[in-house]
């Protein structure tokens, strides 16, 4: 970008500026801190200049939006063409209540759905399982069978909305239910648009809703890749998630590195299962966090896009440009929300929204101010959605593509995050890939160290969290919060008992037996799971069959 002579001149004048101008000021007005750092503890210099990006090659490192290496964005016109999808993650209590919330959100101008399931559903237990006690309908909607799914999407045309489902270990079962509901609406599979999270590796690392050991889990995932490439071609078959890695306390670099390392593992598994990289890679999608350090976050998304494009092209020899495009959903950072002075969270979420948008996200969930206290109320959810709409329609940042490109600081940070992520990925490769690195506890330990350091920085006052360790007030104001009571669990159990009485139980037995037989072979399980859900076999029954064949994952506790 700059020739050597020019760079040397700038270096000389920086030295001069430091001596003549900066030192004079500092001797009278010292800087606030000895060392300045990003939200992820990377050192930040006083000033960034062309010297910091002296080897920068515009065409090679940035290029153009919609073209390799996609640093500036995956679409040529970005938000000038179409704004990101505003997709609020929602779901609680029963399918009826969640259905109402979805309709409310769609009326308010939301453009896609995002389903939150309760924990028993996410771990493949029916609502009447002993371990489900106290958890039914709490963090999401309880789904036991196709019956619940029919209610959940009642009156919502599945050929018109795109739906994202945060479901991992039993992703194939919930996807099958979604396909079955669509069929009942008269919508064929090839018209369905949406995403299943389906990212089991980060469950072992950070989120915890695993069921089966890694090997059969990876098989279920590649089954979905293969099935959808033929039958549900517009469906995003996985959302490789850094979000939870970051929530668990990782740095921005670790978020990029561990997510892409998991991505590499999925691509390798699918290739080993005999798939062609360009048949499934265009449907891989990603999910990142948006933290408070605005410029570091923007650099993070840009670095992730460039690095993934390079990995797909160079390492996996992908030919289809779509295989190289890192498309991602973003959620603002739950871990940055404070229970103290909760309205302050609206401002945090605004900064995080800007980060995601300036970083070129494809869709966004904004957290509600009260989520450090409980599930959000309708009013809080509306403010969160309005935050996106204000950034979209009033801030002006959407009018040109990748507006922060060329900032010495942002480009230098983008390079640095990419370089450090590459070093982590090399280390993980040395350990034998992400699944092995997880088994050895390497990834978990790296995250825990970062999380602990972060907490200690807050406690020492080195890091300020407004309202928590500075600018505190006596908290008096009582907030209205949303609660899910026990009747949800009882109703759900009743519904389940009724279903088990009314359905054709011989048919259920037949489809479950067939599923079990097929699970013991190498066949793709998706068609058999689809048959099982259509016969109203429950989620728990289907997962139990698979538990029998695959066994259950045992977590190794790492401290």
């Amino acid at each position, binding site marked *: 970008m700059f020739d050597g002579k020019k760079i040397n001149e700038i270096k000389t004048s920086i030295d001069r500026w430091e001596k003549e101008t900066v030192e004079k000021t500092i001797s009278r007005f010292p800087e606030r801190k000895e060392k300045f750092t990003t939200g992820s503890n990377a050192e930040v210099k006083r000033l960034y200049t062309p010297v910091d990006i002296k080897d920068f090659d515009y065409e090679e490192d940035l290029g153009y939006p919609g073209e390799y290496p996609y640093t500036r964005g995956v679409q040529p016109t970005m938000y000038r063409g179409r704004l990101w999808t505003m997709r609020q993650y929602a779901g609680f209590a029963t399918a009826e209540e969640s259905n109402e919330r979805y309709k409310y959100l769609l009326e308010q101008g939301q453009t896609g759905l995002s389903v939150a399931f309760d*924990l*028993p559903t*996410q*771990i493949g237990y029916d609502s009447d399982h002993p*371990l*489900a*006690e*106290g*958890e039914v309908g*709490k*963090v999401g909607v309880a789904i036991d069978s196709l019956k619940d799914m029919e209610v959940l999407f009642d009156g919502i045309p599945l050929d018109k909305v795109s739906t994202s489902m945060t479901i991992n270990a039993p992703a194939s079962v919930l996807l099958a239910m979604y396909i079955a509901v669509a069929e009942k609406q008269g919508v064929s599979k090839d018209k369905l648009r949406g995403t299943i999270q389906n990212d089991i590796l980060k*469950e072992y690392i*950070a*989120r*915890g*809703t695993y069921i089966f050991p890694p090997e059969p889990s990876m098989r279920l995932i590649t089954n979905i890749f293969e099935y959808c490439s033929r039958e549900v071609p517009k469906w995003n078959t996985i959302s490789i998630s850094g979000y939870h890695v970051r*929530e*668990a*306390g990782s740095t921005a670099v670790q978020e990029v590195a561990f997510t892409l390392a998991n991505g590499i593992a999925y691509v390798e598994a699918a290739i080993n299962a005999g798939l062609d990289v360009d048949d499934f890679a265009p449907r891989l999608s990603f999910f990142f966090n948006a933290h408070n350090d605005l410029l570091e976050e923007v650099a993070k998304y840009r670095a992730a896009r460039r690095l993934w494009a390079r990995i797909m092209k160079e390492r996996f020899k992908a030919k289809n440009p779509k295989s190289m495009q890192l498309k991602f959903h973003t959620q603002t950072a739950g*871990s940055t*929300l*404070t*229970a*103290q002075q909760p309205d302050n969270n609206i401002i945090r979420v605004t900064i995080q929204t800007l980060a995601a948008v300036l970083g070129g996200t494809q869709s966004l969930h904004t957290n509600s101010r009260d989520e*450090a*206290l*409980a*599930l959000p109320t309708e009013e809080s959810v509306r403010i969160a959605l309005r935050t996106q709409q204000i950034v979209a329609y009033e801030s002006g940042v959407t009018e040109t593509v990748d507006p922060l490109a060329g900032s010495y600081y942002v480009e230098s940070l983008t390079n640095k995050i990419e370089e450090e992520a590459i070093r982590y990925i090399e280390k993980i490769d040395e350990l034998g890939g992400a699944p092995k690195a997880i088994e050895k506890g390497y990834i978990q330990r790296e995250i*825990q160290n970062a*999380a*602990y350091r972060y*907490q200690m920085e*807050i*406690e020492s006052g080195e890091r300020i*969290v407004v309202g*928590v*360790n500075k600018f505190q007030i006596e908290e008096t104001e*009582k907030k209205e*919060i949303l*609660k*899910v009571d026990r009747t949800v669990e009882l109703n759900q159990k009743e519904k389940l008992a009724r279903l088990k009485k009314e359905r054709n139980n011989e048919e259920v037995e037949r489809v479950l037996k067939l599923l079990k037989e097929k699970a013991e072979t190498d066949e793709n399980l998706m068609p058999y799971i689809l048959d099982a859900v259509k016969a109203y076999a429950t989620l728990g029954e289907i997962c139990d069959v698979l538990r029998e064949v695959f066994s259950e994952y045992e*977590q190794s*506790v790492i*401290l």
Partner: protein
Amino acid sequence: MDRPIRVLVAKPGLDGHDRGAKVIARALRDAGMEVIYTGLRQTPEQIVAAAIQEDVDVVAMSILSGAHNHLFPRVVNLLKEEGVDDVLIIGGGVIPEDDIPFLLESGIEAIFTPGTSTKDVIEFIKNNLKR
């Protein structure tokens, strides 16, 4: 008593958010306590069995899913049923203020919510041991 304070850090229920549990575990360890961490998805029965087997002075539970009203008191009651009444039981997580009085009445001696300093937890444990 010269032996270090022994603490069982436990994750009852199904939620997998153990950042807080692990940070607390490490902070207690750095404060000189012996810490055993159960890992995820522990039933109240498993937690009580571990507490007895490890002969701990403190059981520190963390929940972020909202199942605290159901699961925390069960641990207290099961410990009582086993005849253990000298263990300090504390809890933390995303717990609405309205639920705290009920939990305290049920025998959880303190509830720590988001934003709590680990120093406060350490201090509380040292000052409220029952043996």
